[in-house]
C-alpha cells in the first residue's frame, strides 16, 4: 500500500508525519533542528529519500541540510572536513554568494527599500528549495534578497543564476512585508529549459533557456498599492501553482486577486469570482483534476486571519471564478491563524489528499480532496511550510 510523508517546517524546527494510504493514523517524528526556523523542506522526485531542508536563524544565518534516508538522519552537505593533499583541512557549506564575476555574474545593483529609496542587495535566507525533477543532486534555492541559486552537487556548493537578478528590472524590485524573497520555483515537467519563479514584491518571471535569461510575466496583474497598477514589475505575488499535465496553465494567489494564465504566464486574468476575500497566500492544484484548485482566503490588509474567524478552504472545480467553501472538520468560530505561502500541498493518491499548516501550529489533512478535514497535529510551533511525498 502507498504511504504518505508530510514534511512540516516550523518556527522552531522540522517535523515529519507519516501515514499509510488511508491517512487516518499518523506517526510524528521531530523536532529536527530544534530551535531553528525551517523555511522549507522538499523531497526529490528522483529519489524520495533525498530531502532538502532550509534551516535558518537570525543569529547564525543559513544552513542547508540534506537527508538520504527519508528524514531519519541529516547532514549539512560539505560540512565535514576534507583533507587536501597538502594536509590542509577544507570544507564548504551553506555559502550563498551573489555572482558578480565578470565572466558569469552581474553587478550588485540596489533594489528599492520599503520607502522607495535604493537599498543594497544582502543575502538573508533560503525561502524555497526545489529539487530537480530528474536528478537528486540538483536543487534550486530561492533566496532573500531575491535571487535564484542552483546546486548540482547535492547542496554542497551553490551558484547564482544571475541572469534573473541582473536582467534589468532588479533595481525596481522592493520587499513585501516578509522581505524581498524569491519564494516560488516551478519546474516545467515537459520542458527542462523552462522554469517559473515568483518574488514578493516584484512579480513572476520565466526562463526558457534553463535560467540564463529571464523575462517578467506580469501582464494582466493589477496592483493598486504601486504607483502604476499595471507596471511590468512590482506586484506582490504570493504563490503560483501548476498541474504537471498542463504546465502552460498557471494559477496565482496575489496579494489581492486570484489569477490564471493559460499561456505560460504571458497574460493573466482574474478568477477570484465569489471568494469572500481575494487575499491569501497559498494556492494549489488537485493531483488528478487540473481544473480543481484550492485557496484559503485571508483577511487583509494587516489582519492576516480568516474572515469571520472561520477557517475555510475554498475549492474551485472550474479553474476559478466559481468557488465552494470547505468547512467540515475545520474550526468555524474564533479562529485567527494564518496559512503561509508554502504551507499547502497535495498528495497523489486516489482520492487526492490536501494538507495545510497554520501559524497556530495545526496541520490539517483531507483524504478526500477537501470534503472532510481533520488535524494531524495541532500543537506544533507556527508552521512555515508543508510539503507532501507520496511513496510506493
Amino acid at each position, binding site marked *: 500500500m502507498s504511504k504518505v510523508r508530510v514534511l512540516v517546517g516550523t518556527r522552531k524546527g522540522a517535523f515529519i508525519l507519516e501515514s499509510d494510504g488511508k491517512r487516518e493514523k499518523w506517526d510524528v517524528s521531530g523536532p529536527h533542528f530544534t530551535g*531553528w526556523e525551517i523555511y522549507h523542506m522538499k523531497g526529490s522526485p528522483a529519489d524520495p529519500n533525498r530531502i532538502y531542508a532550509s534551516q535558518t536563524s537570525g*543569529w*547564525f*544565518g543559513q544552513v542547508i541540510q540534506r537527508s538520504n534516508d527519508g528524514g531519519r538522519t541529516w547532514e*549539512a552537505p560539505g*560540512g*565535514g572536513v576534507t583533507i587536501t593533499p597538502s594536509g590542509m*583541512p577544507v570544507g564548504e557549506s*551553506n*555559502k550563498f554568494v551573489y555572482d558578480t564575476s565578470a565572466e558569469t555574474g552581474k553587478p550588485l545593483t540596489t533594489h528599492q527599500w520599503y520607502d522607495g529609496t535604493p537599498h543594497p542587495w544582502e543575502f538573508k535566507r533560503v525561502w524555497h528549495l526545489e529539487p530537480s525533477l530528474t536528478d537528486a543532486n540538483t536543487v534550486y534555492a530561492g533566496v532573500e534578497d531575491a535571487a535564484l541559486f542552483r546546486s548540482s552537487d547535492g547542496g554542497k556548493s551553490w551558484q547564482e543564476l544571475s541572469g534573473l537578478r541582473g536582467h534589468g528590472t532588479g533595481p525596481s524590485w522592493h520587499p513585501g512585508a516578509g522581505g524581498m524573497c524569491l519564494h516560488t520555483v516551478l519546474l516545467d515537467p515537459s520542458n527542462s529549459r523552462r522554469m517559473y519563479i515568483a518574488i514578493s514584491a516584484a512579480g513572476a518571471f520565466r526562463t526558457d533557456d534553463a535560467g540564463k535569461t529571464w523575462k517578467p510575466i506580469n501582464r494582466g496583474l493589477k496592483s493598486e498599492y504601486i504607483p502604476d497598477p499595471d507596471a511590468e514589475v512590482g506586484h506582490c505575488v504570493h504563490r503560483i501553482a501548476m498541474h504537471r499535465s498542463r504546465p502552460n496553465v498557471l494559477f496565482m494567489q496575489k496579494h489581492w486577486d486570484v489569477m490564471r494564465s493559460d499561456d505560460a504566464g504571458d497574460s493573466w486574468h482574474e478568477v477570484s469570482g465569489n471568494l469572500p476575500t481575494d487575499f491569501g497566500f497559498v494556492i494549489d492544484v488537485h493531483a488528478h483534476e487540473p481544473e480543481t484548485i484550492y485557496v484559503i482566503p485571508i483577511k487583509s490588509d494587516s489582519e492576516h486571519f480568516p474572515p469571520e474567524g472561520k477557517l475555510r478552504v475554498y475549492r474551485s472545480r472550474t479553474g476559478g471564478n466559481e468557488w465552494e467553501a470547505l468547512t467540515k472538520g475545520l474550526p468555524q468560530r474564533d479562529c485567527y491563524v494564518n496559512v503561509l505561502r508554502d504551507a499547502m500541498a497535495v498528495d497523489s493518491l486516489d482520492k487526492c489528499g490536501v494538507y495545510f499548516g497554520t501559524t497556530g501550529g495545526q496541520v490539517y489533512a483531507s483524504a478526500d480532496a477537501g470534503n472532510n478535514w481533520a488535524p494531524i497535529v495541532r500543537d506544533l510551533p507556527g508552521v512555515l511550510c508543508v510539503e507532501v511525498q507520496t511513496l510506493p
Partner: protein
Amino acid sequence: MIRVMLPQHLRTLAHVDGEVTLDIEGEVTQRSVLDAIEARYPVLRGTIRDHVTLRRRPFIRFFACEQDLSHEPPDAPLPEAVATGGEPFMIVGAIAGG
C-alpha cells in the same frame, strides 16, 4: 591549547559537547581562533562571521575574561589567559527578544 565555548545551537550543528579545544600556531587573535574553528568544523562557516567579508554576524558576541571583545579588531591579540587556556573564548548569541 585554547578553549572555546560555542552557543548551544552551534554545538549541535558541529556535533560537539561542551568546550572545544584548539591548538593555534602563532598569535592568538579572534581571526586565528575563528579560522581554526572553521577549519575543524566547516559546517560553522557563515554561522559566526560572514562568508565573504568575514565580519562577525550582527547577533554574535565575543566575551572572555569578563570583557566584551565583540568590537575589538579581529587581529588584536586575545587576553593572555585565553591564549594560555586559562580562560575560554566565549562565542555567544546576543540577547534579542524575550
